[in-house]
């Protein structure tokens, strides 16, 4: 069983590499400056002017992350793909609402988070979650099982794989907002300010969400720590 040595000093690598917080520029010409600095903003501005190729480039760049993000909120692979598709259709439909003063990924994850949280709140999904609760010896009643994105390579050993699976399961059990805050911050590398914007909340609330989520994970991983 993989264990984490808690007596060691906090490793430097625990500090995540993250995106710089989006700079807000008040002047009208900041859109061009932002486009020059951020290629995603440039793509989005081209998409606003009607370039289909720009939208396709944005899709190819961000859809893998959005799909992975959606998978952690919905109960099936098919539904995760549908949510991903909905996210990018919304991006296109409301492309004129995007302002280049904020980072494109923040805006994208705002849409993705809203759709995923709506998905979690759907009453049909509560029923599906019950069906998804595997009992001993039972097969999953519908759809293929979710691939295990945290599965480590065989070289890293079964213990690490078990830890990853346990962690993935604990994350899936978190309340939706805590889960969203944790994934956006730690997995997708958004700054607290951008996480707050994506959740429609404040930085203080984000800190509280992350604290509670981490405490829950620590309790769930007690056997591994």
């Amino acid at each position, binding site marked *: 069983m993989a264990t984490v040595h808690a007596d060691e000093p906090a*490793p430097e690598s*625990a500090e995540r590499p993250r995106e710089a917080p989006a700079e807000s520029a008040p002047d009208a010409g900041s859109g061009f400056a932002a486009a020059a600095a951020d290629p995603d903003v440039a793509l989005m501005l081209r998409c606003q002017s009607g370039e289909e190729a720009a939208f396709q480039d944005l*899709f190819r760049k961000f*859809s893998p992350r959005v*799909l992975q993000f959606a998978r952690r909120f919905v109960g099936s692979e098919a539904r995760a*793909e549908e949510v991903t598709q909905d996210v990018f259709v919304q991006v296109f439909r409301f492309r004129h609402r995007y302002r280049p003063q904020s980072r494109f990924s923040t805006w994208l994850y705002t849409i993705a988070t809203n759709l995923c949280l709506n998905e979690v709140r759907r009453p049909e999904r509560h029923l599906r979650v019950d069906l998804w609760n595997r009992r001993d010896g039972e097969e999953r009643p519908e759809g293929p099982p979710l691939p295990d994105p945290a599965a480590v390579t065989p070289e890293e050993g079964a213990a690490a794989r078990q830890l990853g699976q346990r962690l993935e399961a604990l994350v899936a059990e978190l309340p939706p907002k805590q889960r969203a805050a944790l994934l956006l*911050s730690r997995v997708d590398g958004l700054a607290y300010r951008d996480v707050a914007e994506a959740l429609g909340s404040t930085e203080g609330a984000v800190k509280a969400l992350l604290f509670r989520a981490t405490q829950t994970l620590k309790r769930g991983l007690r056997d591994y720590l």
Partner: protein
Amino acid sequence: MMRCRRATRWMVTALDGELPARRRRALDGHVARCPACRHEMATTAAVLQGVGGLATSSEVPGRLEQATFRRVRLLAAAEAERAATRAWWMRLRLPALGFATAVVATVAVGLMRGSGDRPLAPRPGDGGRRVVAQAPTKDKPPLVASRERGGPQATATVPAEPPPELAAAPELFVDLPLLRNMEKLEHFETIRTTTLDDGEEQSNG
């Protein structure tokens, strides 16, 4: 001196690099002195590192890409069609507005005509504008004739001669109470032509 409870609450923020420098120094100082918090910090770091190690992306199937592009193309086509329809309608908007305004004005004029305006007293200096109101008879509704356009107010001068139909039937107004009491209105002319300025001049003079 920092307490362990506050230190614990700051740990996640510190490990995410979002804690202000002053608080980070305070936290580091406390962790250096407190073994329990040192253990808690390491545990928190390990958990966050594990979360950070979760997969960030997954392969997108080709069918998802094609389905998304197809939906977006349909959406773009629908937007273009709506824009073209709106443009056609907008081209007619101004002429339609002008037509509607003309209709409303015509209806308003017609209503005002039908309400039977009475003759208006002539204003000094308003020569050339006159409204002649014919007295209603049994057969004819009251008419307003010769109203000039453009003037916001219609002024009238009293005709020197009555209309022919009235002149032919002078007995029509014999019993009117106004005519019977006309001799009482001995100052009528004075009342009609006196203004406030005249009153001031008389008092000052």
